[in-house]
């Protein structure tokens, strides 16, 4: 009787195929059979190390002849006869090398991460949708579609991406699709706009502190607030050199009648906040030196965008050439054009402006249906978008987002959980309504001189950028370009009343009055996310400015001459901690050595010999960091803990400035929880003792050297889900306030 063994064997075969043909839980998200098969699975992605990346684009897709040459670093050099072919090939190449990245980033931007990642991403998706990311992308696409040549460029790019997607078979799918078990989706012009909005979010959403400031004002007087979080830092070296004169502004705004009672004097703690804040140190450096300061006599331009380092990188290097244009530089997969680079005549670079272009308004709904809200003495209907969030492995989740005259309601009773007793908050964000910001790069790619550069960037709106410029003919320049509201003093610093039109943005700063400089006497210009101008700039321009890196760049550039390219490359990686060089003397003169523990004394002797170089082997930098952290806790936490929610402590830079002029730091140095009054000397000494105990532990773990302590790492886009794809324990120096801004690795959270 062979029936039984037959059935048994058949059952095992079918069961094996069944189990191997589907994911096994979240740990094994891929069907193992196809994943392991050397003919369809991951082995197919293991390219020959000598692989020849020649291109196979169907001639039928192109109008003319085109050539792509990959150099020894695999940088593609594209030569096409016209723009359509050029951007078609750019799209094709982006997809060929970065399809998963483009797909993931735009799906995340749109609030569709749950389709890939499952239920863990639902709140992330809600926040994207409530911020109005897709709404913003649609608005920009609408503008793009009004202009045929503009639309044609984006459409060529889209066709190129799709030509690659359509060429894929199961075995040739990028690796990540096999791991996560999904298929790429067709590219659209909307997805390019979403990618650009993702950049806008990274760079101009989170540069506002309205929610935190509102909470801070509940525990601080306005005088304290303005001194701890000043608009113009004492030690600022602005982008536009000091002494620049600005034209008298033609403000045409009116202060709301009830501004004191309803706004300035009416702030209370707010629990709502982003659950997925952008890294506030998403900054960059750029600078340009004139021929008068260089060995060759021609300008040198440098740019180091410090966006998160990832595998693959956010950037993709290319050369794009047609008979009319020839440009080389960093491109952004998901978008056509070169974003940072040079052509035959000019070079340009960008850093983030850090300007606040996002405000919150309290909305009073008539009832829980969110269909009507109180505005200008009447109930006004809100538009509603029903958002369906599709979730991998379970049923869709629905969320209703109400759109007001200000913008979408981002926080209300339905999101986030932290909102308990607050009214709904609507968000107004510059990125919601912009023109074709990508067009600025199209024109820059073809600019031949200063005037071309100015006219290329003048319509760029959001995220505001510091466009640094140099031309072969010897001009150097910088413009902080963006569309910025012309705010009355204090407007948008806190959450604003949203029951009438008086708190709306009433106008914009004229583009020609954006801070800019051309060919300054001193022979260089730089930006590193600092405030663009000093206090004489006649507009109220809040933001999340970063002061120390720019100070370090100024410090070095102003002392350099006969500069070579090698000098500039070294400066890009410079590890001098200028802020520590200003802070440590204050620490040392306020240390009571007699009250130090033996181990604290050892660390004190070590740091006294430190040369402020935050290199990978620096022990002084590690000691400084522990000492500083400990002191900041001792100074601020007793007061700031009174805020009902988490609030940002004043910047390290601000602490240094304050201690220079007032050793009590407005009385904050004293610990309010003890009966006696602590002096700065008490606190600095106690902080070193506290830090020393932790340092001893760190030393025992063998991590006293800076790079061993901060453990710099570059993760795959899927972060902790793919730790074996990360490069960890990199031996590099630098810190957030150092020109080489590689800081301590943050705990990576899988998306």
């Amino acid at each position, binding site marked *: 009787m*062979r*029936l039984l*063994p*037959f059935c048994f*064997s*058949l059952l*095992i*075969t079918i069961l*094996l*195929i069944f189990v*191997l*043909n589907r994911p096994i839980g979240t740990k*094994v998200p891929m069907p*193992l*059979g*196809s994943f*392991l*098969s*050397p*003919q*369809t*699975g*991951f*082995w*197919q*992605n*293991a*390219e*020959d*190390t*000598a692989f020849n990346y020649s291109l196979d684009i169907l001639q039928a897709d192109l109008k003319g002849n085109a050539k792509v040459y990959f150099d020894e670093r695999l940088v593609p050099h594209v030569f096409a006869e016209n723009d359509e072919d050029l951007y078609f090939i750019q799209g094709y190449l982006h997809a060929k090398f970065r399809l998963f990245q483009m797909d993931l980033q735009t799906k995340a931007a749109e609030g569709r991460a749950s389709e890939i990642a499952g239920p863990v991403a639902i709140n992330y998706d809600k926040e994207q949708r409530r911020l109005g990311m897709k709404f913003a992308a649609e608005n920009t696409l609408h503008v793009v579609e009004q202009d045929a040549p503009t639309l044609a460029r984006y459409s060529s790019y889209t066709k190129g991406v799709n030509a690659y997607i359509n060429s894929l078979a*199961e075995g040739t799918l990028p*690796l990540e699709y096999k*791991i996560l078990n999904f298929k790429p989706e067709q590219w659209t012009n909307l997805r390019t706009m979403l990618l650009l909005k993702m950049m806008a979010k990274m760079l101009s959403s989170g540069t506002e502190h309205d929610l935190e400031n509102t909470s801070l004002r509940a525990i601080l007087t306005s005088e304290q607030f303005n001194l701890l979080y000043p608009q113009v830092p004492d030690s600022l070296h602005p982008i536009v050199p000091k002494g620049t004169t600005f034209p008298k502004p033609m403000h045409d705004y009116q202060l709301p009648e009830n501004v004191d009672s309803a706004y300035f004097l009416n702030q209370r703690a707010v629990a709502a906040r982003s659950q997925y804040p952008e890294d506030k140190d998403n900054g960059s450096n750029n600078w340009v030196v004139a021929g008068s300061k260089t060995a060759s006599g021609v300008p040198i331009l440098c740019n180091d965008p410090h966006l998160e380092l990832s595998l693959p990188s956010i950037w993709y290097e290319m050369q794009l050439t047609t008979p009319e244009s020839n440009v080389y530089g960093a491109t952004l997969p998901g978008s056509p054009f070169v974003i940072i680079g040079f052509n035959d005549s000019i070079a340009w670079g960008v850093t983030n402006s850090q300007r606040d272009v996002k405000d919150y308004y309290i909305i009073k709904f008539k009832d829980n249906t969110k269909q009507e809200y109180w505005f200008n003495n009447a109930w006004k209907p809100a538009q509603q978008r029903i958002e369906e969030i599709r979730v991998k492995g379970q049923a869709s989740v629905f969320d209703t987002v109400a759109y007001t005259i200000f913008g979408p309601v981002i926080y209300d009773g339905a999101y986030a959980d932290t909102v308990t007793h607050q009214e709904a908050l609507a968000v107004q964000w510059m990125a919601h309504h912009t023109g074709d910001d990508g067009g600025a790069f199209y024109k820059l790619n073809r600019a031949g001189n200063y005037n071309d550069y100015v006219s290329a960037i003048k319509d760029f709106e959001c995220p505001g950028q510091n466009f640094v410029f140099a031309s072969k003919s010897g001009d150097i320049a910088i413009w902080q370009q963006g569309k910025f509201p012309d705010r009355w003093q204090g407007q948008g610093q806190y959450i604003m009343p949203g029951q009438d039109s008086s708190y709306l943005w009433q106008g914009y700063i004229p583009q020609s009055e954006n801070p800019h400089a051309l060919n300054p006497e001193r022979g260089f210009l730089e930006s590193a996310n600092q405030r663009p101008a000093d206090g004489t700039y006649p507009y109220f321009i809040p933001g999340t400015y970063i002061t120390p890196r720019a100070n370090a760049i100024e410090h070095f550039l102003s002392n350099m001459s006969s500069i070579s390219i090698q000098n500039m490359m070294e400066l890009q990686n410079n590890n001098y901690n200028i802020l520590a060089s200003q802070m440590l003397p204050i620490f040392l003169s306020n240390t009571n050595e007699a009250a130090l523990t033996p181990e604290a004394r050892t660390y004190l002797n070590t740091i006294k010999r430190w040369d402020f170089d935050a290199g990978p082997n620096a022990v002084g930098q590690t000691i400084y960091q522990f000492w500083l952290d400990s002191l900041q806790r001792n100074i601020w936490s007793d007061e700031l803990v009174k805020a009902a929610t988490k609030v940002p402590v004043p910047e390290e830079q601000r602490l240094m400035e304050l201690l220079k002029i007032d050793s009590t730091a407005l009385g904050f140095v004293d610990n309010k929880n003890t009966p006696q009054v602590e002096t700065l000397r008490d606190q600095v000494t106690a902080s070193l003792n506290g830090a020393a105990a932790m340092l001893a532990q760190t030393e025992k773990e063998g991590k006293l050297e800076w790079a061993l302590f901060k453990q710099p790492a570059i993760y795959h886009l899927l972060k902790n889900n*793919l*730790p*074996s*794809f990360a490069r960890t324990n990199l031996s590099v120096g630098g810190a957030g306030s150092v020109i080489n801004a590689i800081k301590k690795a943050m705990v990576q959270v899988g998306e």
Partner: protein
Amino acid sequence: MKFFISLLAIAILSFIVGLYAPWWSIALVAFIISLCISQTPGSSFLSGFTGVFLLWLILALFINAANGGILANRIGGMLGIGQSPVLLAFITAVVGGLVAGFAALTASYLRKKIK
């Protein structure tokens, strides 16, 4: 002799069909070959198992050698088996071999039954 013919047929046909069909086509190939070539259940299983085991092992090792182990090391890390491309190739081959082996075994029982 039948065993080797069967083994070779399964390996070669699995490769060719695998160029166009999903991964589980190895089961179909092993099943059909085993149905056509009469063997004891034991040798049927072994010819199916060994045919695809060797095919997948050789393919994986070839790919891995050209790739210098770059990807297999990372996938090994991801799957929790450590940085051993050879072990990963072996596991790959065993998985393919088992599917083909049982498919071939099933066919040999079926063949006996039809007789």
